[in-house]
């Protein structure tokens, strides 16, 4: 009976996993300000530039960086990230982030692929601490390494559309900074050859959620007794990680591809922990 219930849950998870792309598109519709409310007093939990002509909410990383520049603690932005991280962890990255969606689409282009080594995920801590907190705090928002000045999402969603808009409207064209445009181009090209390079190696928002993965309400579970050591989970995972012992690893975006393996399921923080790794 228990195994039947487990099989049913497994089937349900697989069905849900197939909806990921649709959920990403639906989320994009929410972030793109369909009602033109521009509610920038509130942060969204995703990586979406608030200077985008279509941005419903403020970008939490932009708010944290700017608050650091004015020597204030952004309680609202931090609280939003902690609540989102506590409830869903990296599901936010895999299922709702618009910049992640763009990289997923580029990943579908049939090109030779390579996998970034897992240690590249630790660069994200450097970006979060360095470019989002320390540089703005010490040198303000005018510094060349201030996060928003190098942000590829800002280049894609704000700088490029605003440049096109100003050119079309006949007003003076303000060219986007070359740095962030080049970084955007580099990551667009990289995304053709490796899966989600920005998320894997540099995203400061993803690292916040990945830190919450171990304690979030929704958690990935690996059942040791179900594992037959086929190591197929490594080929299922975009980051090339083995599920055993690494099920909530820092680069996981909870795309649920690994749930095709019988040993991997999704559970809650209140679920049973026996036989779980």
């Amino acid at each position, binding site marked *: 009976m228990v195994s039947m219930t487990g099989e049913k849950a497994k089937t349900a998870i697989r069905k849900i996993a197939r909806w990921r792309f649709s959920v990403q598109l639906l989320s994009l519709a929410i972030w793109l300000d369909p009602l033109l409310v521009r509610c920038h007093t509130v942060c969204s939990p995703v990586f979406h530039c608030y200077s985008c002509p279509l941005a419903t909410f403020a970008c939490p990383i*932009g708010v944290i960086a700017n608050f650091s520049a004015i020597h204030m603690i952004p309680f*609202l932005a931090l609280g939003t990230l902690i609540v989102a991280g506590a409830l869903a962890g990296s599901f936010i990255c895999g299922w709702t982030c618009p910049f992640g969606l763009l990289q997923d689409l580029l990943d579908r282009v049939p090109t030779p692929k390579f996998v970034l080594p897992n240690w590249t995920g630790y660069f994200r801590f450097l970006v979060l601490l360095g470019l989002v907190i320390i540089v703005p705090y010490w040198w303000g928002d005018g510094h060349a390494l201030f996060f928003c000045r190098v942000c590829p999402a800002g280049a894609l969603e704000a700088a490029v559309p605003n440049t096109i808009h100003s050119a079309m409207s006949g007003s003076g064209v303000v060219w986007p900074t070359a740095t962030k445009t080049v970084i955007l181009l580099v990551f667009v090209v990289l995304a053709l050859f490796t899966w989600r390079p920005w998320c894997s190696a540099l995203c400061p928002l993803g690292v916040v959620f990945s830190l919450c993965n171990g304690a979030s309400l929704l*958690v990935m579970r690996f059942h040791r007794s179900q594992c037959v050591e086929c190591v197929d989970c490594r080929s299922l995972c975009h980051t090339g990680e083995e599920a055993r012992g690494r099920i909530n690893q820092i680069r996981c975006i909870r795309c649920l591809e690994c749930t095709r393996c019988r040993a991997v399921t999704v559970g809650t923080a209140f679920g049973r*922990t026996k036989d779980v790794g």
Partner: protein
Amino acid sequence: MNFPIRPVLFLLLLSAGIAAMVYGARYHAAVVGEEREVEREILIPLAGFAPGAGFGVPGDPTLGPPEGPATPDGSAGMSPDEAQGFMKKKVTQRVLVDKIVAEPRLNREVSIGGVALSGDGTLLQTYISGRPPSLCPT
């Protein structure tokens, strides 16, 4: 019996997040110096006035550009101020006013580069009140 560390961590994290959000939304604010343009009437001594030459001492930067009524031709009747040797003039001045800005509004302000830290550590609004920039400076 194992200590249920995961549920406890989750509840702690969730509580901390909600507490931070409530504090930020309801109680956290900052004092921001806002530059406002106000129109004032000032009295100018008539002694320095010569018909057709404008008001004030020529080259006096403190008075700013003449924005009031055109130079009177002297045909109008004298007001009480004029009778005392002064002339009223409307000038636009920029004054710094401290205002308390709640964190949600600060979120919006920083998204357009509307607030900056001054050299003495105080926060200043970067634009004249009522004329916010449409885009962030980056």
